[in-house]
């Protein structure tokens, strides 16, 4: 019986251990669920969810999707098709259709499952992606339509970090130590350090999956340049490309999203000039007015003037790039943060934005599109430097006071370098604004190449040109951390560095938001290493017979979700290639 008693004890112990294990497992799962929810909440405010519901309701109002027709989109042929080196917006006209994402950022920066379910966050260093079982490569050799596996996903992500000098996004996944397929459909990512932007990085615009088989068969060179070597899992299959003329893609019949895409094909037409681009749209040769990565309200107005309001639809699409003014913090007189703050207080954002004719919105350090971190226009308008009317006069007085305290020679400011002609008008306004506080500054106009070179080589004092896009508030690390790759003004501040380093190590959205709120406050009130004033808002314009469009986040007004659009009526000329 003793033995029996022992057996009973053992059984009880085993049962207790099993219960404890279950409870532990349950706790881990709960934690994982919470963290996934946090990741989703990171990008989805209640307001945005309401907007999304409204968009869904609108889609219902637009009627049931219909199949058929060839979508004709204006593009600029970037010529490079490798997502690891793609630097040209025009390239996305092709690659976003041919390749696909494990997860992607949908409207409102909602992280959404793509070829993989949303990740299970095992702990802060381990993430598990379950690949959907119905994902297949295009039916072209050497893939021949085989299933997309976890091994493919591991390679697809790991490849971004391969030692190829042309791969420009390698740091994005540098925190991941191990890309492991634990079984056919399970991908395990193990980070070497806590890095909270990691899940966003997996869902970034460029995080498209290229297969090992294709790389082995064609090599990196052909993957980047040869259209024949473009084999993905995306909604469309590459058919032909005539460089600088057109791109033809066919519907992928095995696409994992059942019933999608709705178009039979996709034709990218390469057009170089605004006049012919608008003319082709107006007379019905293309269905989209703009390139994928921008859309100007004035173009929409032109199209509406010719076609009428009912024939054209324009949808605002906030994106994460804009116009910025970089300040070199190691060049006099900008070494003194008080001088930089004086410049910040003197700039009249309302005037600057008015010049853009609707292309830009007032912006702070983080784009408003990166919710909930980016400040809205209304929030910013309450802040010193962004205010108007009498409050602006207070800001100007404060600016003068700061300049007086520094004793800086107001006639000795080095010229403002600008990207001409795109920034010429803005620069003149800024010049006038600075004149209001006594700063006498000249303007030095540079070509695009010169401006890029000056910024890249840090050969400027203050320079006005484009602001990089990103999908995570961690962009501040890249932009301004002492070691940041795009810290063009050589800003270095241990307190700021500590803040953005902490921002990388925290998953909790509230806690993370508090960190970036503090960083933004201090940037605008004390440090001002850049003159922040705008982010872009793209107007995506298309013919109203197209339905189902939803704005997409990211650096571009991406056509990533064009697969979800359809022709309500197939227009003449779009029946076939």
């Amino acid at each position, binding site marked *: 019986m003793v033995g029996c008693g022992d057996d009973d004890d053992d059984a009880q112990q085993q049962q207790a251990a099993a219960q404890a294990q279950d409870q532990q497992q349950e706790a881990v799962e709960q934690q994982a669920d919470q963290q996934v929810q946090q990741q989703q909440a990171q990008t989805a405010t209640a307001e945005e969810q309401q907007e999304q519901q409204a968009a869904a309701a609108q889609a219902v109002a637009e009627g049931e999707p219909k199949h058929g027709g060839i979508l004709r989109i204006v593009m600029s042929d970037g010529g490079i098709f490798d997502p690891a*080196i793609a630097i040209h917006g025009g390239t996305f006209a092709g690659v976003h259709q041919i390749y696909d994402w494990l997860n992607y950022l949908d409207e409102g920066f909602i992280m959404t499952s793509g070829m993989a379910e949303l990740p299970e966050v095992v702990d802060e260093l381990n993430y598990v992606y379950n690949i959907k079982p119905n994902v297949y490569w295009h039916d072209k050799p050497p893939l021949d339509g085989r299933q997309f596996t976890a091994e493919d996903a591991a390679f697809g992500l790991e490849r971004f970090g391969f030692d190829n000098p*042309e791969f420009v996004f390698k740091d994005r996944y540098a925190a991941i130590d191990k890309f492991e397929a634990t079984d056919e459909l399970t991908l395990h990512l193990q980070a070497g350090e806590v890095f909270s932007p990691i899940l966003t990085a997996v869902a970034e615009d460029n995080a498209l999956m290229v297969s090992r088989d294709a790389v082995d068969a064609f090599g990196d060179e052909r993957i980047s340049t040869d259209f024949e070597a473009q084999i993905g899992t995306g909604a469309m299959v590459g058919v032909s490309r005539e460089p600088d003329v057109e791109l033809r893609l066919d519907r992928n019949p095995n696409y994992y999203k059942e019933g999608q895409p709705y178009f039979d094909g996709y034709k990218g037409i390469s057009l170089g000039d605004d006049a012919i681009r608008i003319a082709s749209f107006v007379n019905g040769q293309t269905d989209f007015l703009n390139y994928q990565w921008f859309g100007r309200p004035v173009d929409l107005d032109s199209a509406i003037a010719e076609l009428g309001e009912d024939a054209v639809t324009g949808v605002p699409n906030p994106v994460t790039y804009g116009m910025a003014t970089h300040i070199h913090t190691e060049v006099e007189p900008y070494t003194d943060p008080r001088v930089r703050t004086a410049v910040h207080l003197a700039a009249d954002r309302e005037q600057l934005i008015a010049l853009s004719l609707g292309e830009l919105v007032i912006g702070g350090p983080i784009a408003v599109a990166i919710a909930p971190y980016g400040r809205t226009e209304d929030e910013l308008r309450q802040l010193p430097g962004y205010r108007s009317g009498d409050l602006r006069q207070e800001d100007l007085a404060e600016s003068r006071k700061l300049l007086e305290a520094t004793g800086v020679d107001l006639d000795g400011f080095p010229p403002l370098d600008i990207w001409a002609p795109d920034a010429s008008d803005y620069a003149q306004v800024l010049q006038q604004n600075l004149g209001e506080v006594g700063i006498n500054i000249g303007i030095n106009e540079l070509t695009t190449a*010169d401006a890029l070179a000056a910024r890249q080589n840090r050969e400027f004092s203050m320079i006005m040109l484009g602001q990089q896009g990103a999908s995570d508030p961690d962009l501040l690390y890249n932009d301004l951390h002492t070691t940041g790759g795009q810290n063009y003004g050589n800003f270095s501040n241990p307190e700021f560095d500590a803040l953005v380093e902490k921002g990388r190590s925290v998953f909790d959205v509230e806690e993370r938001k508090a960190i970036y709120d503090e960083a933004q406050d201090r940037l605008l009130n004390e440090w001002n290493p850049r003159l922040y004033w705008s982010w872009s808002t793209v107007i995506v314009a298309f013919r109203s017979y197209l339905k189902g469009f939803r704005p997409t986040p990211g650096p571009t007004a991406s056509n990533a979700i064009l697969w979800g659009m359809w022709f309500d009526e197939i227009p003449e000329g779009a029946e076939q290639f």
Partner: protein
Amino acid sequence: MRNYIFRRLLLLPITVILLSIFVFGLIRLVPGSVIDARLSAGFPGTANADDRAKLEAHFGLDKPVHVQYVKWIGQVFSGDFGTSWLTKEDILDNFGRRMPVTIELLILTLIIYIPLGIGTGVWSAVRQNRADDYGIRFVTILFLAVPNFWLATLVIVVPLVLWGYAPPVPYVQLWEEPDTNIVQMIVPAAIAALAGAAVLGRVARSEMLEVLRQDYVRTAYSKGLAGRVVILRHALRNTMIPLITLIGLVFATGIAGAVIVEQIFAIPGMGRYLVQSLLTNDLPVVQVWMLVFGAAFILVNLLVDISYGIFDPRIRFQ
């Protein structure tokens, strides 16, 4: 004449070598590089100085300039034009695909340019100080003054606003759909031709006026020859030397015009290729482009020089 041609051909490689040194050096004086474009083209790459150095080594930009030049010119003379730094496409393939497009545009330009320029010039001279002469002179000055990029934009916008018409897109090859291709090419060719034709017309007019005052023309009239015969057979031939020089120059002006109209009308020719490459500092493409067209221009000048002897037998080559 044979000796003259032989001497000129012997000088050709030396001229091309000098041209290549000039082109290679000039391009490198332009600030910015494809490296900058790669590293900061508006996307959230996190490239740093190390990445920059690796890219420079990848493109061979870490070598001394003279080493880069010798390697490049050696490749060019062995028929390897290299690859684009930006698109990584073979430059020779691109030339092969784009050159026929631009040649077609140039031929169409010449077809419009020569008869229009000489015809209006001759007509204007023959009808000196009459209403049609004043009309032609006004129009030629107008086309000289109007920039062709503005004219090109206008011919897209006006038909669109008036009739909802736009040129067909995308571009199709001549041998695929000849009628569509001609519709696509004739307007850009006309625009590329107009400014040149205006110059040619004004020169033809002044030359023709001078010739018409010569004794032999008066003699021809007094012999009772028809005015058309006098103009075309006797007078026109003697105006051709300066006109041939101008027509030779149309190769250069036509290429300059092609750069603009190809960009505006989305014609995938050599002009558009140059614009795209210049905007992105794609040095290998720009270098080869300038070298090839520079060499071609030297050859065209040689042909023009030779043709002088055909139009004026008094000219002897020494």
